[in-house]
């Protein structure tokens, strides 16, 4: 359809090729001068001389690459770069678990070769000869391949092998198709169902109820004239800053065997104490409290987008309020309702924190995977099989959502300043909505009140309400001594590590996500759709699955990353990247494309356009992504519970440890500190940018769990 560029490269190198030459030279530098292995030591050339013959082709290619780039032989350079990367990776894997792990030299070589290859294929005509676009696409695709597809693929593959490493399909079938996973006994009155069935039931119930409650709340706020609308909106923001098990903890404190409400019911009405909260009811309640706010945001937005003119038209056509609601409002809401349901469904499936505290004997996939790895059984194959099932469920829901989003359109407002007033709800429905909303608000506030209070009293779980700061002291004590301030509290280590990891990963997430969004929206190239899909797939993978995948894939040579901080950062960056992409795509849609074109007609290269025109205008999206990535990294648990170590412990992991040890007050105190810290960060950012919209889920995308 369009003319392809087939002009051969000029004999004299393009002046901008200075960067290209520098990159290729870096590859050579990496093999000649930098330590190849993780443990340090000789550069590749030294190791090859000492006997590692597999490295010679790598060195030869790394030497030939700058030569090709210098001469302008870009086709050869691209092929060489590709071969270099493939050979180095294969040689690394061939070394097996006992081989050398990649260190600085290897990492730099792979990076330089990838970039050089990207530049060369652009000079040969790919990506419309745009070097910047080519580099962005190739580098991001490679990173995704390395840090999402490879680990998940390898981990799923381990479900198919036995403990000696041999391929065993029979064993895989045995692992996957057991009663344990798929049993339906409980539906027929029996005691237990399979874990997959449990997860599915829980997810469906939570999805339905959260959507329903969110609908009631949205109707009450928008149409029922709820005066405390501001409160409901505030409550929608809370889940962003709340560590994942805070709600579960609060429920235990309130309704546990020795809980506050249980005790009051027992003494006031003689209701016997029980452990009803542990199991399906408790987890459902906790998940509802956690996920309804997000469903509320979706439905609230959808209701607001329904033009009042439509309902007014219905009224002038003699429709009663009920008929207006049934025939106009409800059908227009259906896509948003489906979206909210799927969101609740997937969040429930991927949720780890609430089940681990409250599920008791009600096994769900996320916790079972955890116990398969961290518990006494230690069966990675089994964990991988369960991960396969969980991933299958979320991919199914993700696919379902893409199909819905692809077809349905939510917005009926034409942008011409609709001056209508939304119809009020029919009286019966209105009262119901107000009632349910009031109950909901009270309940949520009670939970947060418990958390707030719990850190400051002796033992809120046992009803001991004497004011005391011992828990804060235990966790966050500071001593002023001879050497200055010493952080004696047991919680400081994890807090500092968490802040550090979050602060490092947030900017990286923003950069990668926004660059990806830029090339997706502003440039046309072959495979753009697939690239876009690749960047969003990370959304569909639950945290537990990624966590397991990372410890399987990155535990041994050649990519040995576990035990360090790097793996935590990487995990956060690639799990949160889709948020950056979504925010970037939404923001770029608001920026007139003609600005890019004007820049181009003013002789600016793509890189210059990106730096001087696009990025400055993307500032709100950058801030949104930074804030979201930061808070998400601070509150994540389901992936990092596998990756945290004693040296690099994270807040959420530490808190879970306290919960499992029964030290509830300290866990609550720590959660309070986290909440306030993140609220402070949020407020600071809002002050600085004046941006009140966090746009956490632009377009209602699915994000799987914390």
């Amino acid at each position, binding site marked *: 359809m369009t003319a392809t560029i087939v002009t051969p490269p000029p004999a004299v190198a393009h002046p901008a090729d200075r960067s290209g030459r520098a990159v290729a030279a870096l590859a050579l530098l990496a093999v000649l001068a930098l330590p190849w292995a993780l443990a340090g030591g000789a550069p590749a050339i030294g190791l090859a001389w000492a006997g590692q013959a597999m490295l010679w082709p790598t060195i030869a290619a790394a030497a030939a690459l700058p030569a090709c780039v210098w001469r302008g032989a870009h086709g050869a350079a691209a092929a060489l770069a590709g071969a270099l990367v493939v050979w180095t990776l294969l040689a690394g894997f061939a070394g097996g678990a006992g081989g050398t792990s990649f260190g600085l030299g290897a990492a730099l070589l792979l990076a330089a070769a990838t970039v050089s290859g990207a530049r060369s294929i652009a000079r040969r005509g790919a990506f419309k000869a745009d070097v910047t676009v080519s580099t962005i696409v190739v580098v991001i695709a490679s990173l995704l391949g390395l840090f999402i597809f490879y680990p998940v693929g390898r981990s799923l593959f381990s479900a198919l092998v036995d403990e000696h490493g041999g391929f065993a399909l029979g064993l895989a079938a045995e692992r996957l198709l057991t009663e344990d996973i798929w049993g339906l006994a409980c539906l027929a009155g029996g005691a237990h169902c399979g874990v997959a069935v449990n997860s599915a039931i829980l997810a469906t119930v939570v999805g339905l109820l959260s959507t329903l409650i969110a609908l009631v709340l949205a109707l009450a706020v928008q149409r029922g004239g709820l005066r405390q609308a501001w409160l409901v909106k505030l409550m929608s923001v809370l889940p962003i800053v709340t560590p994942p098990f805070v709600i579960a903890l609060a429920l235990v404190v309130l309704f546990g065997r020795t809980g506050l409400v249980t005790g009051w019911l027992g003494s006031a009405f003689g209701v016997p104490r029980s452990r009803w909260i542990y199991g399906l009811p408790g987890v459902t309640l906790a998940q509802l409290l956690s996920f309804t706010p997000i469903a509320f945001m979706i439905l609230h937005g959808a209701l607001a987008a329904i033009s009042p003119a439509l309902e007014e038209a219905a009224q002038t056509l003699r429709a009663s309020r009920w008929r207006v609601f049934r025939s106009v409002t409800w059908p227009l809401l259906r896509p948003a309702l489906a979206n909210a349901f799927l969101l609740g469904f997937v969040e429930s499936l991927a949720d780890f924190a609430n089940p681990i505290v409250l599920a008791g004997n009600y096994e769900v996939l996320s916790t079972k995977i955890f116990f398969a790895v961290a518990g006494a059984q230690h069966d990675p194959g089994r964990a991988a099989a369960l991960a396969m099932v969980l991933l299958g469920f979320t991919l199914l829901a993700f696919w379902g959502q893409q199909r819905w989003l692809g077809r349905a359109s939510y917005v009926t407002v034409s942008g011409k300043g609709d001056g209508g007033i939304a119809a009020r709800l029919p009286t019966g429905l209105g009262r119901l909505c107000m009632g349910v909303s009031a109950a909901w608000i009270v309940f949520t506030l009670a939970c947060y009140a418990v958390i707030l209070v719990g850190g400051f009293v002796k033992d809120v779980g046992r009803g001991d309400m004497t004011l005391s700061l011992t828990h804060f002291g235990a966790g966050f004590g500071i001593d002023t001594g001879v050497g200055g301030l010493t952080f004696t509290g047991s919680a400081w280590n994890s807090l500092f590590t968490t802040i550090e990891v979050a602060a490092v990963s947030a900017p990286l997430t923003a950069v990668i996500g926004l660059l990806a969004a830029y090339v997706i929206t502003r440039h046309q190239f072959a495979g753009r759709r697939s690239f876009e899909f690749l960047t969003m797939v990370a959304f569909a993978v639950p945290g537990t699955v990624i966590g397991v995948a990372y410890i399987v894939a990155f535990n041994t040579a050649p990519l040995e990353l576990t035990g360090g901080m790097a793996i935590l950062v990487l995990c956060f960056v690639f799990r949160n990247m889709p948020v950056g992409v979504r925010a970037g795509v939404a923001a770029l849609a608001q920026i007139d494309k*003609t600005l890019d074109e004007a820049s*181009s007609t003013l*002789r*600016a290269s793509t890189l210059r356009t990106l730096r001087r*025109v696009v990025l400055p205008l993307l500032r709100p999206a950058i801030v949104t992504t930074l804030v979201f990535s930061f808070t998400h990294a601070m509150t994540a648990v389901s992936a990092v519970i596998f990756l945290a170590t004693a040296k690099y412990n994270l807040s959420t992991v530490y808190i879970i440890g306290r919960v499992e040890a029964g030290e509830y007050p300290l866990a609550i105190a720590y959660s309070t500190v986290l909440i306030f810290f993140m609220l402070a960060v949020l407020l600071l950012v809002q002050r600085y940018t004046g941006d009140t919209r966090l746009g956490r889920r632009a377009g209602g995308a699915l994000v799987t769990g914390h």
Partner: protein
Amino acid sequence: MSATSSGGVDFEGVSKRYGAVTAVDDVSFRIAPGELVTLLGPSGCGKTTTLRMVAGLEPVSAGTIRIGGADVTLRAANERDVSMVFQSYALFPHMNVLDNVCYGPLSMNPDKARARELARAKLEMLGLSSFEQRLPSELSGGQQQRVAVARSLVLEPAVLLFDEPLSNLDAKLRRRVRQEIRELQQSLSLTVLYVTHDQEEALAVSDRIIVMDGGRIAQQGTPHELYETPASRFLADFIGDANLVDGEVAVGASGAVFSAGGTAAPVRGERVRPGPATLALRPQRLRVVPAGQGVLPGTCRRSAYLGSRHELIVDTPWGELLVFDADMHRSHRSGDALGIDFDADAAIVLPR
């Protein structure tokens, strides 16, 4: 001038296809250096697509584009010696006026002092020196447009492109701004390709007009040629107003005669062939005369007072005709009988 002289655009057999849809179909034209050529046509005719292909913002499906003799077909926008003034001006909202105008020179040469010097010269030429520090949002529409022009001019391009530059201005401002653009172009001898859908604007500023319809060139020529001798019904109707009457032409010893609806009238004789034809009559060339006189008898059906003229719809044997009556001393009411007269050379004969 020769094809390889500096400036000048050669558009040779260019097509643009989007899947099954052909937006531009084998179009060829030439813009001589120092000429202002307008692409004119209704929405969807392909004029904007053509402009964007000259700019390098759309790749061509077939054909060649030459600028200043060099083949630029495969070059990206930032590698062509072409600048463009966008319909929305596309001023960078986060940069002030001076930085906007400096952007082009800085892309080519990082010398800030030199860029500022060039920018200031152009800003002064356009009367914008006192607005240097302002942001685009602090300027009026007309001022923004001049900044956009300054920004394009500062690179002294071989070809300057305008994409409907007046569409965002209010009606009063349009006449003044189009005169300014024309004067600027003539004083600097710029080669300009101009796109608009407003035919009055096209007639006012252009050296030559290329009318496009359905992705093809319907006619090209000077404004005078297009107005006086349109080649088809579409062109007669598109440029200016025209009454179109279908009838027969007979050529006799005294010249050509057009007849329809039982009434005949003499028309311009050169190069008119006998047979079925369409007559195009400009409303302002039709004169209202007392009933019984003139070429056609008529009854006034409707009359509208427009200040500078009356617009009359007159029922005649040739159908309903639109007539502009500039004589404001009299007025006609619905039902009045009157006559319509016109000069033989005011009627344009189009083949059918």
